[in-house]
């Protein structure tokens, strides 16, 4: 098979190959994960003891803000797009993405957007005086409107939005138009389904986010008053517009992880996925519900009781399709011939700990209790259980699962398992105590705290340092696997089924130039 392509840096700059672009996305995401992770380490180091030790309060606020923005927009979302690029064409028997040149563009916008986002951090006199955004990743008005380098932030968000929207259109076009003959929609692997639905969510809500930041831009520089009370605007409006984007956004981050886990569990349980159709419908139901529950993020803003009740019931309803998924994964494992290779460990970890995050979500979704939990560490614990042990665990599981197909080499099973156990123990030491301090009333986003919270915070910080360090091990494992190791077979896993396992390992540069026949 001839695979002519430029070499060196030009290969990566000009590539339109879905595998190259997938690789670029995944490395970009890993870099951002380490950058955002380093910021989390600063946060945990400062919170190790009560009182101010290491950083200035504004620097701390900048760390929490940038950590959130980088992890959401730089690490989790691009990683999922990276998986889509690598896997969707191989799973539906397509030679490449539908719009390869746009694909190149969607990726290459990202590094510049990230650069623009972090640049103000280096614009102070010294590093501690950095002028990065320090208003929380949700950038609530009116606080964010007072930020003197707002334009950097706004245009970075615009660029990230462009990238996501183009990536999504590409994925929709690929899935609709490039499937191999016989690959009907209801035969598609679940990962492809979850990404199709995610792509629809993205093109529906990223423009709303773009609208919100555009309003901030004109408020700040062109004298409008969308959110400025002094001019007849309303800061609460900002929260509504933001969360109309923000709630679907959290499903954008988790749905592809659902898809990855739905590929892995049947492989290692050696049974087909239980309730395939119900999984598809549950995913669609979650996506639909995500549009009508946004104000549960703002129960305490001052809503009429009718509004509180509506958003509470709608929110709690999401537990139904989500439970369908969790029960289906469990039923897939039931009486299966299970083995526990590294991807399966991460996938089971995902199911278990994502469910913990789901339950705390139910607690937060109940309006009267939310008044107690709002803006405390309980919320922090909740969304880290669903995003770290949920989305990130899904990503790591997927990397271990498909790495042999991508590189042609098996990773070290021993090191992979070490990585899993180190991470899983430390991540619980890190986040579980945050439930306790949250219930006792420790506010989030604060660099100093009441000494009564000291013990749990110290424990949480220690867990954080171990969890952070164990991701360096992940990097080492990946590099070792790329450089060599036991050769992977074409099928890689005994129980693996699907088109991507019919091609050689490593996957050739061009695959499925002649479409396979799916029966």
């Amino acid at each position, binding site marked *: 098979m001839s695979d002519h392509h430029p070499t060196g840096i030009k290969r990566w700059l000009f590539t339109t190959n879905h595998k190259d672009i997938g690789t670029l996305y995944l490395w970009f995401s890993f870099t951002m994960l380490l950058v955002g992770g380093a910021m989390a380490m600063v946060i945990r180091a400062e919170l190790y003891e009560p009182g101010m030790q290491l950083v200035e309060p504004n620097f701390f606020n900048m760390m929490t803000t940038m950590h959130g923005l980088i992890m959401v927009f730089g690490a989790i979302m691009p990683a999922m797009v990276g998986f889509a690029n690598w896997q969707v064409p191989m799973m539906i028997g397509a030679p490449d993405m*539908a*719009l390869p040149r746009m694909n190149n563009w969607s990726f290459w916008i990202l590094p510049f957007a990230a650069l623009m986002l972090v640049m103000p951090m280096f614009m102070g006199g010294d590093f501690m005086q950095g002028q990065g955004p320090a208003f929380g990743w949700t950038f609530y008005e009116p606080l964010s409107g007072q930020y*003197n380098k707002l334009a950097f932030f706004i245009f970075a968000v615009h660029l990230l939005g462009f990238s996501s*929207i183009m990536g*999504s*259109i590409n994925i*929709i*076009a690929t899935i*609709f*138009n*490039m499937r191999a003959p016989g690959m009907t929609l209801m035969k598609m692997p679940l990962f492809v389904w979850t990404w199709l639905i995610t792509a629809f969510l993205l*093109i*529906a*809500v*990223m*423009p*709303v*986010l*773009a*609208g*919100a930041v555009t*309003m901030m831009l004109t408020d*700040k520089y062109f*004298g*409008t*008053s*969308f959110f*400025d*009370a*002094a*001019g*007849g605007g*309303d800061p*609460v*409006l900002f929260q*509504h*517009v933001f969360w*109309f984007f923000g709630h679907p956004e959290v499903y954008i981050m988790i749905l592809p992880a659902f898809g990855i886990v739905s590929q892995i569990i049947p492989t290692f349980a050696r049974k087909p996925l239980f309730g395939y159709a119900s999984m598809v419908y549950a995913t669609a139901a979650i996506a639909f519900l995500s549009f009508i529950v946004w104000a549960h993020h703002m129960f305490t803003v*001052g*809503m*009429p009781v*009718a*509004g509180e009740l509506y958003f509470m019931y709608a929110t709690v309803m999401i537990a139904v399709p989500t439970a369908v998924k969790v029960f289906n994964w469990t039923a897939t494992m039931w009486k299966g011939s299970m083995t526990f290779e590294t991807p399966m460990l991460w996938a089971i970890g995902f199911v278990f700990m994502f469910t913990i995050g789901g339950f705390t979500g139910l607690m937060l979704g109940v309006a009267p209790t939310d008044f107690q939990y709002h803006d405390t560490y309980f919320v922090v614990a909740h969304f880290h259980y669903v995003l770290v042990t949920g989305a990130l665990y899904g990503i790591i599981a997927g990397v271990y699962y498909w790495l042999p197909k991508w590189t042609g080499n098996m990773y070290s099973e021993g090191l992979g398992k070490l990585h899993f156990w180190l991470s899983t123990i430390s991540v619980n030491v890190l986040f579980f105590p945050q439930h306790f301090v949250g219930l006792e009333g420790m506010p989030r986003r604060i660099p100093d705290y009441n000494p009564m919270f000291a013990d749990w915070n110290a424990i949480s910080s220690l867990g954080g340092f171990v969890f952070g360090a164990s991701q360096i091990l992940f990097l080492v494992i990946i590099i070792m696997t790329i450089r060599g190791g036991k050769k992977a077979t074409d099928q890689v896993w005994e129980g693996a089924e699907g088109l991507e396992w019919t091609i050689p390992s490593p996957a050739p540069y061009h695959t499925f130039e002649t479409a396979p026949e799916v029966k």
Partner: protein
Amino acid sequence: MPDKMQETKQDKTETNNKRVVGVSSLVVIAMFGFGFALIPLYDVFCDVLGINGSYQTIEDGTYDAKAETERALKNGVDESRTITMQFLVTDNDALDLEFKSRTKSLTMNPGQIKEVSYYVKNRSNKPMVLQAIPDITPNMAKKYLAKIECFCFKKQTLQPGEEKEMPLRFVVNSALPEKFPVLTMTYRFIDLNYKAGVDTKSGYLQTVQVDSTLNDIN
């Protein structure tokens, strides 16, 4: 022959791709517009649910003080009960301003017209253009309160060191439900110079430009 079939298939895929791109782009543009459409929708919801309504009408200049007062007065004075009105102010940390209510609290019959006074002094050495932002607790009592005259109806310009007594005349509709025995009003001043404050050089001129987006009542 197979070559030709291949070609037609490719053409078809390209047409389909164009269609997906077209439709998706329309969705993107529509949703960008929807973000802005949320603003009027939000106002409609606030009106229907009775939240935020009167403030916005004060701020955007459509508050009809006369009509509101007539509506509040038509039920007469309810002498069978009294309510307590409390008058608070909220400090704005960003402003070097002395701001207080002369009357902290008063007891009155619903339907009576009352007047209280607020004191404000610009302690800084810069002129200020201020807009008062009102609030009332409990929220649902808002529609029973009519402001006959209020310093929040218009912007207040204060020279350095200037002080002012500002009246608030109001009436509470005697249809006010009995579950609201205490109403708490609060005001907070926002500096309309604040946007200009980012750019100290252009200062006052920019303020005037911002002001033009405000419609004064009276």
